[in-house]
């Protein structure tokens, strides 16, 4: 059933497939830019992944005017402000971000600071509160297949002072161009492939079952679920399978478009709190929490879950099940996939495996209640029930 009203936006040009990276200079030219700031992290430079992009840009006549690699695992407000200063010092005119969620979200923050012509990103916090500012050409090259951040209108940036992850929601954080190229994820370790893939699955399932779901976001979410179910295990078991890698990159992008237009839910609310308080990797937390929150939401999300089942296990297998068993079957298939990924790549299944201190769970539950994603979770969550979920996942 369609909601009585919904909004949908995706203005990102997506270049997907062979030699997509080589098109970056041409895209910059079309955007009127010639002096890009390259943002990435030190690990990607060491692994030679970001250098592939840097070299291709130079070869095609558009070298980086400056490069910043000192981006922490969790993007932070102060780093964003620092990069914006660097951009101005070097008279850059555009941003090329090469990395995972932290790099991309930092770049989005920088773009916001520059386009809104301020010095402090904290002054811009809010939801859909900004007007279109100065256009700063912005290209994103994801190096994981999970966050979908290359196509979302949200930047999640850590506030170090308050130990919380802040969300900046605005269509103006969306990049101009997203580049999906299998070369960027071929070296991703098996466990990271597994957890980031589960992050994409989580985006798709939450987007298609939360209060903000709509037909257009559902279309992207279901396509993402199909791709994850077909290609995630394959990408984990055969890391050099470029076809599987590219399809997982596409799955993450589709899931990103889905949740950018319908939000997420309880998994992300609790996950953001865990990340802010305990500094644990986002994707690992998503993989652990997803089955627990799905089980909790089952009473109200059963219809949505049942509709997603064919995309997860195939049309014929889903049709063979009675209607009333399909929602539970989706949950079972998610649990089954996490177990397979655990066996194949050591995907973490419990919060304790990530080093989350048990005594922090209560604080995490309190912080989660103030996360915006909670507002659209299909079933209400209070502190006590959030704590129960955390203990079950511990």
């Amino acid at each position, binding site marked *: 059933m369609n909601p009585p009203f*919904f*909004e949908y936006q995706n203005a990102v040009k997506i270049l997907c497939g062979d030699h997509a990276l080589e098109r970056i200079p041409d895209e910059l030219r079309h955007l009127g830019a010639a002096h890009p700031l390259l943002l990435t992290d030190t690990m990607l430079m060491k692994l030679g992944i970001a250098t592939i992009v840097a070299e291709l840009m130079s070869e095609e006549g558009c070298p980086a005017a400056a490069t910043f690699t000192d981006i922490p695992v969790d993007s932070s407000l102060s780093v964003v402000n620092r990069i914006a200063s660097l951009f101005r010092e070097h008279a850059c005119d555009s941003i090329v971000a090469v990395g995972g969620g932290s790099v991309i979200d930092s770049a989005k923050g920088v773009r916001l600071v520059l386009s809104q012509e301020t010095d402090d990103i904290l002054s811009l916090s*809010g939801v859909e509160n900004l007007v279109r500012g100065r256009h700063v050409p912005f290209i994103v090259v994801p190096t994981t297949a999970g966050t979908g951040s290359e196509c979302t209108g949200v930047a999640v940036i850590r506030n170090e002072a308050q130990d919380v992850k802040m*969300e900046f929601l605005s269509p103006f954080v969306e990049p101009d161009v997203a580049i999906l190229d299998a070369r960027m994820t071929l070296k991703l370790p098996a466990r990271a492939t597994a957890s980031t893939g589960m992050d994409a699955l989580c985006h798709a399932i939450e987007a298609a079952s939360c209060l903000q779901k709509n037909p257009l976001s559902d279309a992207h979410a279901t396509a993402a679920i199909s791709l994850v179910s077909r290609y995630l295990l394959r990408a984990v078991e055969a890391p050099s399978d470029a076809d599987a890698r590219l399809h997982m990159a596409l799955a993450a992008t589709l899931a990103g478009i889905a949740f950018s237009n319908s939000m997420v839910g309880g998994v992300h609310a609790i996950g953001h709190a865990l990340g802010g308080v305990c500094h644990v990797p986002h994707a690992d937390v998503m993989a652990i929490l997803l089955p627990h929150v799905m089980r909790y939401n089952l009473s109200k999300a059963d219809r949505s879950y049942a509709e997603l089942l064919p995309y997860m296990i195939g049309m014929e297998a889903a049709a063979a099940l009675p209607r009333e068993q399909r929602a539970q079957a989706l949950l079972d298939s998610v649990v089954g996939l996490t177990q397979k990924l655990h066996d194949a790549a050591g995907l973490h299944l419990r919060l304790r495996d990530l080093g989350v201190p048990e005594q922090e769970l209560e604080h995490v539950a309190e912080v989660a*209640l*103030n996360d*915006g994603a909670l*507002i659209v979770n299909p*079933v209400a969550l209070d502190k006590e029930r959030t704590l129960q979920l955390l203990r079950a996942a511990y």
Partner: protein
Amino acid sequence: MKRFIKKLTVAAALRLVHAALVELRWLDPFVREQMEALPVGISYAIHTGHDAPTLYVQWDGKRLLRLEQAPAKTTCELRLKSLADSFLMFTGQIGLAHGYARHSFTMQGEIADVMRLARLVDRAEAYLFPAFMSRRILTEVPALPSSPLRLYGRLILGFLSRSYT
């Protein structure tokens, strides 16, 4: 419906929600706990549309004050995108969660502060609206420790004695 009737309705609803929160602090331990956990000095503005009413409230550590005009710096500003959106939300046709899902408002400030206010407003709505409406607009209707009739009784006395200005 004429625009001025919608404006009057929304203005009355804003006053009612504020007054209900003032009273519920004494009637409902959940509201008391949530309100007393608010940072002292936090202020909210709720704008309901072009040339439409605005509610300014501030928690001073003891009372949730309704201000006649904007404080020097408002912590969190909610701006409903149209009077039609405001009317839907403040007449119990949609709840805050569904308003969010419909992109009915923009927000300036920290999302955490909106979530603090949302918990209070949801609770007030559970008292102010009949059960069949609460079930439609809230993701969960909470068990209420006090009677809505008792709240309405206190509100009548409060408005008669001009306690909420």
